[in-house]
């Protein structure tokens, strides 16, 4: 939506195509905050250094510098649009400490920061007259001669396919958390844009880097914000020890997410867990602080874990949370395909490298969303309308009809279940060659079976089963890309932790992984990391 606003401001005719209503997008669930060096005692360079270090030196430093430099202005721009950041007593924008950050620089709106930003962006989308095609699901990015021509989308209400002919398209479809069994992500976070872009010929980058958030609820994977630790929460093992003292003696619970998740997994694997979890203890913060700063967290803990954090610690464990990888773009959101742009979690600029810092994802979405919108409109002003290939709508219609026609195949949920289990078992917090290879074989087999999937629901109106099948197709591609990258990268860096290659290897692997689809096969290649002034060093918290 940030991109749409920017493009609409330039006077273009802009449409937003979304499979859910815009305020349902999963940014709505981002709790903790958004980073920017606002305080004179802080600086964007500090922010950039923390981000580079957090990325385990895999982030492109020119992009990171840009992100951190432009952050304060985007924070203020959001407030001008209508957001109201939480204040300190003097009326200044309040900032809280976050993991991996050397200064409290995370702005927030209580513990519903993403909700606040998403709703404000929606307001501005209305203000700027963006046309919204809501509950339309894109089934194809139309590309011809390496130039984007528009998209084909299915209108869920009628089941009809529509062609949307445009000079440029920006993909902002979020993450793929749903390829994992335990994830903080929404049911709709199915990596659609990544799958579509891959099929359209764009490259995916650094897909093996999957962030596991250290504090998610067992069974449901629902997120407990890092803000809970930022406000002073402790992590305890079954013996009641603050085990982070061992793994990150200086910053303890506020080490970066990959470090905390690995520490938790190690504790759990060593038998010091509580029913497969560790405990997040907020009791010492007191009822007043919990109610004021973390009201939603208290609600979530009560409703979804049956625990009131004022009285009892919350059981938590690592769960798939964020995709550092995504569609490869430059700092203007541009992909290798003319007129095709991407931003947010679905894109990989790369500013997060091997591990993203808390509070940097909303920032990424806002800064690079704006930049992608601006660049896409610039592109539109300079380009003639390319023709929309006639056959593409017919081809898409055939594909959908094919799925609807099939009978006697297995239902999609069985394949989905096997895929999420395979990803969880083979490609979790800790990885090794044997498990990864087995996982990859698993996904290959599932992709074959997917070709024969059939539906019980043959109707046109809100055929949610059909939607699930289309989503599953994208998810299988994304899962495969993650595994290929993970098998290939024989080192441990950031969130990618290989027990068979426990060290970081800058000589061989200070490189981005690229994945392309050619003739239906996924091909892997490499790209250098941009280094400006932060030389790779060992990462300690």
């Amino acid at each position, binding site marked *: 939506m940030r991109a749409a606003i920017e493009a609409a401001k330039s006077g273009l005719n802009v449409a937003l195509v979304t499979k859910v209503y815009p305020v349902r997008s999963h940014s709505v669930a981002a709790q903790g905050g958004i980073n920017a060096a606002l305080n004179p005692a802080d600086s964007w360079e500090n922010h950039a250094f923390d981000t580079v270090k957090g990325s385990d030196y895999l982030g492109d430093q020119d992009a990171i510098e840009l992100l951190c430099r432009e952050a304060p202005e985007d924070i203020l721009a959001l407030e001008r649009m209508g957001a*109201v950041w939480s204040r300190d007593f003097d009326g200044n924008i309040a900032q809280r400490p976050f993991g991996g950050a050397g200064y409290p620089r995370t702005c927030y709106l209580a513990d519903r920061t993403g909700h606040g930003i998403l709703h404000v962006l929606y307001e501005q989308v209305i203000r700027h007259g963006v046309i919204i095609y809501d509950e339309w699901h894109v089934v194809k990015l139309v590309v011809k001669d390496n130039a984007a021509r528009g998209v084909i989308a299915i209108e869920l209400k009628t089941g009809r396919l529509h062609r949307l002919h445009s000079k440029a398209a920006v993909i902002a479809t979020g993450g793929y958390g749903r390829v994992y069994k335990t994830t903080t992500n929404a049911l709709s976070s199915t990596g659609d844009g990544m799958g579509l872009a891959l099929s359209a010929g764009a490259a995916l980058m650094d897909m093996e880097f999957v962030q596991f958030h250290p504090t998610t609820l067992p069974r449901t994977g629902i997120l407990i914000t890092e803000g809970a630790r930022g406000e002073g929460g402790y992590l305890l093992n079954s013996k009641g020890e603050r085990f982070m003292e061992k793994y990150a003696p200086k910053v303890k619970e506020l080490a970066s997410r990959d470090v905390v998740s690995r520490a938790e997994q190690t504790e759990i694997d060593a038998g010091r867990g509580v029913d497969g979890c560790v405990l997040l203890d907020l009791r010492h913060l007191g009822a007043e602080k919990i109610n004021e700063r973390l009201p*939603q967290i208290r609600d979530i803990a009560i*409703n979804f874990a049956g625990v009131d954090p004022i009285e009892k610690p919350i059981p938590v464990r690592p769960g798939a949370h964020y995709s550092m990888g995504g569609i490869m773009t430059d700092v203007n959101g541009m992909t290798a395909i003319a007129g095709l742009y991407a931003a947010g979690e679905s894109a990989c600029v790369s500013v997060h490298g091997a591990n993203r810092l808390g509070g940097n994802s909303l920032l990424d979405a806002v800064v690079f969303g704006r930049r992608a919108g601006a660049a896409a409109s610039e592109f539109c002003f300079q380009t003639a309308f390319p023709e929309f290939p006639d056959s593409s709508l017919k081809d898409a219609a055939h594909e959908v009809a094919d799925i609807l026609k099939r009978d006697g195949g297995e*239902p999609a949920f069985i394949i989905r279940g096997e895929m999420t289990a395979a990803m969880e078992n083979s490609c979790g917090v800790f990885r090794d060659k044997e498990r990864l290879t087995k996982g990859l074989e698993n996904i290959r087999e599932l992709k074959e079976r997917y070709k024969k999937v059939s539906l019980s629901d043959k109707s046109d109106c809100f055929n949610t089963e059909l939607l699930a099948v289309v989503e599953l197709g994208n998810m299988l591609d994304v899962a495969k890309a993650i595994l290929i990258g993970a098998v290939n990268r024989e080192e441990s860096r950031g969130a990618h932790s290989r027990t068979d290659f426990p060290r970081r290897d800058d000589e061989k692997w200070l490189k981005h992984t690229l994945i392309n689809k050619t003739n239906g096969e996924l091909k892997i290649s490499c790209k250098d990391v941009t280094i400006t002034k932060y030389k790779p060093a060992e990462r300690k918290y």
Partner: protein
Amino acid sequence: MKIKIKIKRFNPNEGEESREPYFQLYNVEAGEGMTVLDALLKIADEDDPTLSFRRSCRSAICGSCAVSINGHAKLACKTQILPERHKFGEILVEPLANHAVMKDLIVDFSPFWNKMSRVTPYLTPPPGRQEQADDVKITPADEAAIDRAQTCIMCGACNSECNALEIDPEYIAPAALAKAWRFVGDVREGEKQKRLERLSMEHGMWDCVRCVHCTEYCPKDVRPLKEIELLRSAAIGRGITDNHGAKHVESMTQSVKRVGRLDEAAMTFKTLGFLRSLGMIPFGLKMELHGKMPMPLIFSQIEGMDEVKTIFDEIEEKKKEKE
């Protein structure tokens, strides 16, 4: 434990004879902590993939899965099955009320978004300016004034329960009114007067019947009725009183100030104006025959009116101080 879940279904695509809504029973294995959404997902996967419903975040923040459960609007993801069944003896899931059903549990949400658009749902800079300036200082108190309104997730539970909307589909309804207060209550908003004038028109904020359903069933405790009250106070404070609703409130307040209590007959006359009161005469006459027409002239004062007057004066003074 196997639990029966009864779901109201409707599919416009099915053959002519089955185009009426019908109820279908499903048996679901339910355990501690399982939510209605978990059950719906399980049914759609394992039992009946044709069952359609909206869902996304499954953690009560995206607003997709509001449905009617045992008669009232709730988020399916926030409603646990076992306590719900314990209370009602069954689990009955229906689409939201006050909205047209499109398929199964999916209702037509376009009226909801249209009502939102009616309140100009974005912060408007002061007249003559393109963008908000950064020079307005926001205090924690300013933030608190709109905090509840800002927590709305647009799930539609309030509108689904709203009794005024049930009778009058044109009514602006609580969700949009809470949104309206989010801007009217914002220190930076440049068009408060215009907004309040528009909200004071027919089918606007004065048509709320104060049934308190919105506040009772809001899953995020937005309390839309509170925002409606704040909007009304703001309108009266700005002198936007040329409508029945505001007049009603003003004459009521005057009546309490004068005699300490409600003076019904006076209120009727003041609110509706003389001409409309004439229109009510036949009804009044009938009431008179049954001894129901209150007599304003003989209406007695309460004791201790001096205390009431002191309170009125104190509040007036405090208000002036604030300005």
